[in-house]
């Protein structure tokens, strides 16, 4: 019984430990440059939990991270290392902005905008998928190149085709008929969060409870067995890319239709940049599981929101957060981390020994 609990808890404990290693690593770097680590972390904590505004902002920031985290998580489940959420998300945002050029009734307009975002994201994932299945090109290379191409293509489209005639620095705003309403007044939180969580649950159902999802996971875990079982591996790879692309595209679309006050894309892409890359860390901490991804996204978003307060009150550059995220991911790379630690600290070893022994 206890052993079962330990096996179930182990991934969570490992993630929490990695989080702590990341915070410790960040503290060391801060101390090296003479910043106060404790004051910085206090600022992070108080800004997230100290006010309704902070908490609302955290959830608003978590919204796209849930989706870009899903892109990577679904990829891993399907045996891919899809780090193309960044570019797929850019194109999703472009798709949602482009839909504002047409006029449609309330409700329908919103649905069309979200679908356009998902479609654009899925389409942008296809070159990587096709290169993988026909030429054997590893997706790490192709998706990164596509991310850069998407960035410049997106900047071109925003400036030359979708620009706001009145304000050169941004695109046209989403039409009022295509916007998501606010969820918590006084904060930037909108019903985009609900859309994002529902999408995560649908993905959970699709990947864990359907035949398509089962085949996808078999290909991910054991391509040889998949071949024996008569599973069409190429079809599965395409599905994995498309589902991931849809998630990333939706993230981009929600950053438009659910992102007050401008409901638009900036010419420098400042409101969407790095959300795709953050998704990688989110997925890894969330153990590539949709439910884990939701919580991990909130953790990452909390760090991002707290970083701004940290910059103001403790003077620590907010880029510190990316260092912490990097250390967390490096720590997660070693799955034996927990065992390694337990060897170092006798207390943990004894405790784990008890858990294991009392099965």
């Amino acid at each position, binding site marked *: 019984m206890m052993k079962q609990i330990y096996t179930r808890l182990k991934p969570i404990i490992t993630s929490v430990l990695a989080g702590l290693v990341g915070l410790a690593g960040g503290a060391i770097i801060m101390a090296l440059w003479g910043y106060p680590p404790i004051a910085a972390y206090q600022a992070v904590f108080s800004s997230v939990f100290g006010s309704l505004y902070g908490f609302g902002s955290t959830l608003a920031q978590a919204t796209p991270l849930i989706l870009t985290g899903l892109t990577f998580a679904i990829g891993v489940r399907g045996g891919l290392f899809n780090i193309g959420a960044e570019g797929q998300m850019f194109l999703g945002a472009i798709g949602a902005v482009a839909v504002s050029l047409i006029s449609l009734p309330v409700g329908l307009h919103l649905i069309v905008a979200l679908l356009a975002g998902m479609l654009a994201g899925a389409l942008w994932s296809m070159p990587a998928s096709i290169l993988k299945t026909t030429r054997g090109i590893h997706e790490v290379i192709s998706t990164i*190149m596509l991310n850069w191409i998407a960035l410049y293509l997106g900047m071109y489209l925003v400036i030359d085709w979708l620009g706001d005639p009145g304000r050169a620095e941004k695109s046209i705003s989403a039409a009022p008929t295509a916007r998501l309403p606010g969820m918590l007044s006084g904060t930037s939180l909108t019903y985009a969060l609900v859309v994002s969580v529902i999408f995560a649950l649908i993905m959970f159902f699709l990947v864990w409870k359907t035949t398509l999802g089962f085949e996808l996971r078999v290909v991910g875990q054991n391509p040889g067995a998949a071949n024996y079982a008569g599973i069409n591996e190429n079809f599965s790879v395409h599905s994995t890319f498309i589902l991931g692309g849809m998630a990333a595209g939706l993230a981009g679309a929600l950053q438009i239709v659910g992102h007050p006050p401008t409901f638009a894309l900036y010419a420098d892409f400042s409101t969407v940049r790095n959300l795709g890359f953050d998704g990688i*860390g989110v997925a890894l901490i969330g153990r590539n599981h949709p439910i884990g991804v939701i919580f991990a996204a909130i953790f990452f978003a909390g760090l991002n929101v707290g970083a701004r307060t940290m910059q103001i009150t403790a003077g620590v550059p907010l880029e510190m957060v990316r260092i912490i*995220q990097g250390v967390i991911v490096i720590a997660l*790379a*070693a799955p034996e981390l927990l065992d390694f630690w337990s060897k170092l600290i006798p207390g943990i070893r004894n405790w784990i020994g008890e858990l294991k022994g009392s099965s």
Partner: protein
Amino acid sequence: MEILTSFLKIFIISLNAMVPITLAAVGEIIGERAGVIDIGLEGILLISAFVGTIGAQSTGSPYVGLLFGIMVGLVIGIIHGLISVYLKGDQVISGVGINLFGGGLMAFGLIAVWRTPGHHVVPSAVRMPKIATPFGGISYITILTLLIVAGVYYLLTRTKLGLKINVTGEHPRAADVAGVNVEKIRFFATVTGAALAGFGGAFMAVDWFGVLTKELAAGRGFIALATVVFSKLNPLLALLGGFIFGFFDSLGVWVSSAPSIKQVIPWQFILMIPYVVTLLVVAGAIGRARFPDKLGEPYRRE
């Protein structure tokens, strides 16, 4: 005549642009031949550019800067090697972490050290001297890179150590039985590879660009990975690949200084060139690359 001058100018810039991609790619080839993949090249380029600049500016010598770059590459290689080889961890995830860390450190460091969120210009006094030509300066490190490529090619194809490295990646069990210390070979191959990438990063800071920005690496670490695929793990082909990618990289740099072309083609499409070319070259490379059989898999003794 004007066309010839332009061509020679692009050629000279390409010789510079070739260096970081080739060094990172050749380093990666050593590691991958031994069975360890390191996708953290982008991060290493950034970290070593940052630390290399600190080294150069605090001592006033670009050579110390280069040494700092190599040393910090070495340190990251040790971390990646420990995780991949001894802790039997996930090599790809470790590489992602290194990339995230590197991006963060550069952005943080620009503010923490030089109080600038944008870019830091490396003082010309601590930049490497160049061989002057009428069409631009050629770096001494370009020549050194050619020697390194030749040396690594010789090491991997003509020496006993090279044989050990290849067997370790291809068939670690056989290597183990033959008395090769698989973990040691893998670890040192990884560390050496990361140090070469570190050299490339420091080169970008104190030699070629002389400017630090958040996006200094601009995907070159991943272009180096593409170069490895293109080269089929052959250092000589990696040099050719590095030059091809360097050429298209330079084309963008050169075009952006030629206003007549900018009027015809939007600047965004010019900046896209290196990435589009990388995709096309990798997709069009004749025949699939064959990677070592046990690439990316930790070796466990039974």
